[in-house]
């Protein structure tokens, strides 16, 4: 009780003391709150992002924007068996795997089964559709290829257009197998319910006949239903039978019943957490291996494995990035803590000395100040938690750097880790404070002289040569990066198909992902921050020299304020090293951050545009002039018979609203026969005039400008542009002729071209897919005697595809045959919402803004404090007769020097470090993420904004000081210097 009473008394004293320090306490608490808010937001943020990432990954790519709370889609597993050749396999052999997949797999995967289904498809038969055909003879014309197919639960998902659902039939008892046929086929072939036909199959034992009766004609009730994971159109040419007919009737009778089996498992994913990703991926591999063992030829066609591995990779990449970007921010926070604790302790130095001389023990002083510190920290923590949630909320709204225009999408919920972070920071601050106080309290009476002498010495880290030492790891990191080429060892990342194709690829991929742990060399991640830090400290070493130069120059003039400020800065480096470190760090990190963000943003944009080539890409078919018997356009028609397609002039696209340019771009596989061996690549046919108006182009794509390349194509109709690497490899030069074989609609056309130019990169081209040849589309069509469907690239202000496609296809006006549309901008908008994109930009933005805020607070604090601390000096100067104009100019120059040095050195350093390190920060899982490469962007606009901010900071600090100066009582200030 007595203890509590005493404690309460102490708390009251502490509160009183804090109150008596007014502004300083307020500024320090505010800074502390901001600091703790930011520190605590980072782990919660990382957690929220990775949770959302998992949900988004599990929900599939299409719903990458899913919010955290959105319903997760269940996992779908598709196992498939495809008979290698007719007669290879029988249903009896597949029964074991069938039972395993449908009954056991779910348990082995550890995921509750929601439902399962199975599709059985036989090898194709010839269905005679000519009524007068001879049932004994295999038809040579008037037939269609069809297969028997059975899927469970079919009846409830189809609507019968005609007839009835087939009875279960057994060829042993009933010669006719009852089947369903799709509405589309029935219409095309003119079939109706109740008719009977014959199926022919030619096997080793001769011709087998299956008489069928069309019991009914069907259509999918809802083609969008998840039941139709294979689109109903896939069954257009199928004769659907009840499962029992297939398994009990057909299977025993047929020798070659199994063309294809598909098992589909839908498993509940709602309890899968981030940590389960890798074990689950491994279990999937095990189940797949087991299925293979039971029946060779079964493979896992579709599973969340690739997504899980992708998730694992993205989170590890994301946490890497988050950590990498937190390091500089943390450094800044430390600089801030250093500054503020220094300021507060200096403030308390005299008070402590008084307390000591009145007999207070060291322990008591430590107790009181710790209590004060605790009060402040508790207050800051209490306000910091909601602040951190606000910060996360803001980060979740990040669309791009400092662009918070998305709807909020992260769950707001402080994690334990963030509380730990906050707690540790608080403890760190308290300890720093305590250490300084104990140091201060060791002297009972400190003299002004001692204090001054302390300030005249270089700071401790300079005496210890810390700045020089820091260069060693920074330089080593830079060297490593240079030799490694990227901050991450570029992985041979497994693609989704590779994972599906080879059974053990999954495990291998998991291993590869683990090996590629970006954290394995934290030095690389720390290198930029270390570099900045080392340079900042080193700069402080040079600064007194620079200021001495300025003082010398000022001494030659009649100036008073300028000279006093310059001399002060050149001779008391310890006095202002803390604020200057903070300024330089902020400026350089902000410059680096903003430049990195801008580079990433630009690169992000470049990636999308490179992939698509233009604002909007349309896939078009012209008007078909020839049809095959089934009604599809007969693309295989030979050239002698004339063109298959007719096209409306591409300029018609300009009539659509918003379209300012349109160009035809056609791409076909092409082979170049070089020194005997053919090299397969692609031929890109373009409209050389329009292309340069629509295409995305960057100067570094080729040595020549796009215009020059297009002119080269114009000068020679048979001209072709090729990749420089290809020309070099094949020792070809402009002017050489090049024979290409272009494959169009199943036919190969040998065509002679002349090389007229080269490029390093070309929109839509990824070198891993083989060489690209760019030539005149018209020339190609001339050579193949006819036009073929091409893509149309559009330049337009419009973003979404739909209204554009509507306008283009409107039968009343343009009536174009547009079958596909990709809007690059829409893609960018979509991609911006992806958690990994948002994750990085959210942190960069908030780190940037937080750093700015802290620095402004810290600097104001410093300015006010430094004035107070030099009150005696100010009083003496005023007593000696300095006019207030001279006093103001002294203060102004001091601020100007500090801010200007901070700005110039900081942004210079930031730019230097950006140029040095950003090229190595190009991260990507796929090779395509690296093409086109980064071009480092220096965020000048942001830098200017920071300059403006610091301009304001100067105005604020200066007007604050000028006000204090106006209220300065000389007699009081001078009196401070007396000891009696």
């Amino acid at each position, binding site marked *: 009780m007595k203890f509590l009473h005493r404690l309460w008394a102490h708390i009251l004293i502490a509160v009183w003391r804090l109150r008596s320090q007014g502004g300083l306490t307020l500024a320090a608490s505010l800074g502390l709150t901001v600091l703790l808010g930011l520190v605590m937001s980072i782990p919660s943020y990382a957690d929220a992002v990775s949770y959302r990432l998992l949900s988004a990954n599990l929900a599939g790519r299409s719903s990458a924007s899913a919010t955290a709370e959105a319903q997760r889609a269940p996992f779908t597993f598709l196992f498939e068996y495809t008979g290698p050749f007719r007669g290879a396999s029988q249903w009896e052999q597949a029964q074991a795997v069938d039972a395993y997949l449908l009954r056991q797999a779910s348990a082995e995967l550890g995921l509750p089964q929601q439902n399962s289904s199975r599709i059985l498809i036989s090898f194709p038969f010839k269905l005679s559709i000519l009524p007068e055909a001879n049932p004994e003879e295999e038809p040579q014309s008037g037939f269609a290829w069809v297969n028997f197919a059975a899927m469970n639960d079919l009846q409830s998902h189809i609507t019968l257009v005609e007839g009835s659902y087939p009875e279960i039939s057994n060829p042993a008892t009933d010669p006719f197998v009852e089947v369903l046929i799709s509405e589309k086929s029935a219409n095309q072939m003119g079939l109706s319910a109740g008719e009977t036909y014959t199926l022919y199959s030619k096997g080793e034992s001769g011709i087998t006949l299956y008489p069928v009766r069309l019991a009914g004609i069907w259509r999918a009730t809802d083609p969008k239903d998840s039941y139709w994971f294979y689109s109903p159109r896939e069954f257009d040419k199928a004769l659907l039978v009840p499962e029992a007919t297939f398994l009990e009737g057909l299977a025993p009778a047929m020798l070659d019943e199994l063309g294809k089996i598909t098992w589909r498992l839908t498993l509940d994913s709602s309890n899968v957490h981030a940590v389960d990703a890798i074990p689950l991926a491994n279990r999937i591999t095990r189940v797949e291996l087991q299925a293979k063992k039971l029946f060779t030829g079964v493979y896992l066609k579709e599973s969340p494995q690739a997504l899980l591995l992708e998730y694992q990779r993205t989170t590890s990449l994301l946490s890497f990035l988050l950590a990498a970007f937190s390091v500089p921010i943390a450094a800044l926070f430390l600089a801030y803590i250093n500054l503020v604790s220094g300021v507060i302790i200096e403030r308390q130095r005299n008070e402590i000395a008084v307390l000591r001389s009145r007999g207070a023990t060291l322990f008591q002083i430590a107790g009181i100040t710790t209590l004060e510190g605790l009060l402040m920290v508790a207050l800051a923590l209490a306000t910091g938690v909601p602040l951190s949630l606000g910060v996360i909320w803001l980060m979740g709204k990040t669309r791009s750097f400092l662009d918070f225009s998305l709807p909020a999408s992260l769950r707001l919920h402080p994690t334990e880790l963030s509380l730990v972070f906050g707690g540790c920071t608080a403890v760190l601050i308290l300890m720093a404070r305590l250490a300084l106080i104990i140091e201060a309290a060791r002297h009972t009476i400190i003299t002004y*002289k001692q204090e001054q002498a302390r300030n005249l010495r270089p700071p401790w880290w300079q005496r210890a040569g810390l700045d020089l030492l820091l260069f060693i790891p920074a330089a080593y990191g830079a060297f490593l990066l240079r030799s490694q080429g990227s901050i991450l060892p570029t992985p041979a990342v497994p693609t989704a198909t590779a994972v599906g194709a080879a059974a053990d690829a999954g495990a291998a991929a998991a291993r590869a992902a683990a090996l590629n742990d970006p954290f394995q060399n934290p030095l690389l991640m720390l290198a930029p921050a270390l570099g900045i830090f080392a340079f900042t400290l080193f700069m402080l070493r040079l600064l007194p020299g620079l200021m001495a130069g300025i003082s010398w120059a000022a001494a030659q003039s009649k100036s008073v304020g300028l000279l006093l400020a310059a001399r002060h800065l050149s001779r008391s480096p310890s006095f202002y090293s803390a604020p200057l470190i903070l300024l330089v760090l902020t400026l350089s990190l902000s410059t680096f951050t903003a430049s990195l963000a801008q580079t990433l943003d630009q690169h992000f944009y470049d990636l999308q545009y490179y992939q698509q080539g233009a604002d909007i890409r349309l896939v078009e078919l012209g008007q078909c002039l020839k049809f095959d018997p089934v009604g599809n356009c007969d693309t295989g028609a030979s050239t002698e018979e004339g063109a298959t397609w007719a096209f409306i002039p591409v300029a018609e696209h300009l009539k659509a609203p918003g379209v300012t340019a349109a160009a035809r771009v056609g791409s076909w596989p092409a082979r170049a026969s070089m020194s005997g061996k053919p090299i397969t690549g692609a031929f890109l046919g373009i409209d050389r005039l329009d292309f340069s108006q629509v295409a995305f182009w960057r100067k570094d794509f080729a040595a020549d400008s796009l215009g020059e390349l297009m002119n080269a194509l114009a000068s020679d109709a048979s001209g072709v542009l090729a990749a420089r690497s290809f020309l070099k490899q094949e020792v070809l030069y402009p002017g050489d002729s090049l024979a290409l074989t272009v494959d169009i609609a199943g036919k190969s056309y040998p065509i002679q071209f002349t090389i007229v130019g080269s490029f390093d990169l070309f929109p839509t081209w990824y070198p891993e897919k083989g060489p690209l040849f760019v030539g005149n589309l018209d020339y190609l069509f001339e050579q193949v005697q006819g036009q073929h469907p091409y893509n149309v690239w559009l330049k337009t202000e419009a973003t979404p595809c739909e209204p554009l496609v509507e306008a283009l296809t409107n039968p009343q006006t343009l009536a174009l045959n547009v079958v596909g549309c990709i809007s690059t901008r829409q893609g960018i908008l979509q991609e911006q919402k992806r958690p990994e994109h948002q994750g990085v930009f959210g942190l960069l933005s908030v780190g940037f803004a937080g750093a700015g805020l802290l620095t402004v607070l810290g600097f104001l604090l410093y300015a006010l404090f430094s004035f107070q601390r030099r009150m005696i000096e100010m009083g*003496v100067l005023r007593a*000696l007769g300095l006019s207030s104009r001279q006093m103001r100019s002294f203060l102004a120059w001091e601020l100007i020097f500090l801010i200007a040095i901070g700005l110039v050195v900081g942004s210079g350093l930031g730019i230097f470090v950006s140029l040095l390190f950003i090229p190595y920060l190009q991260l990507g899982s796929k090779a395509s993420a690296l093409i086109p490469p980064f071009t480092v962007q220096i965020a000048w606009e942001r830098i200017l904004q920071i300059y403006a901010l610091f301009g304001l900071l100067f105005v604020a600090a200066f007007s604050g000081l000028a006000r204090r100066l106006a209220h300065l009582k000389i*007699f009081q200030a001078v009196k401070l210097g007396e000891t009696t």
Partner: protein
Amino acid sequence: MTDEPLIICENLWRVYKLDALEIAALRGVNLQVAAGRFVALKGRSGSGKTTLLNCLGGLDSPTAGKVRVLGHDLTQLDDEHLARWRREQIGLVFQSFSLLPTLSAYENIELMLRIQGEEKKERRERTLACLEQVGLRQWMHHRPYEMSGGQQQRVAIARSLANRPRLILADEPTGELDSVTAREILALFQRIVHAEGVTLLMVSHDALVDEYADQILHLKDGQVM
């Protein structure tokens, strides 16, 4: 003009207000100091000596009464004019710490002349002359923390001479010095007063002062006895 005392105080009051508390440091001081003399102002600690000196130097403004110094009514001057008046006509010496710690002895003195807007050559000559006068020429490039208390005080005296003041106000310049050094400083002051014809008003509670001063005033309970 020459007959008029350099300093005239009439019924000078200075009352400090601390929240509700009022402390009357000066209670109607009447004082006259004639030109060219070394006047010592003595009194106990807390008797109001510093307050009086501050009022005479225009560093503080009296609550009531009249202060005329060097022919100016200080109560009529605003802060800017007071600053200008000080830099042109007054020399100030404080108890301690009055030198700028980042400046060398030379620079501290030169600053005074710089404030006044003197030309470079004149600044240099005058500074060196002042240093010479206090015997610290060879210490000119040292900074205060490298000098002893007595040396620092001599630099402060040299600085107070730089602007060729008619009146030097010194607040316990020997307060922190040992008696040997204090004597040196007092002797220096005495020499300066007699050689330059400057008037010196020195606050002190040091008994040594009696040997050097031409006139001694006593301050007690805010009044000159």
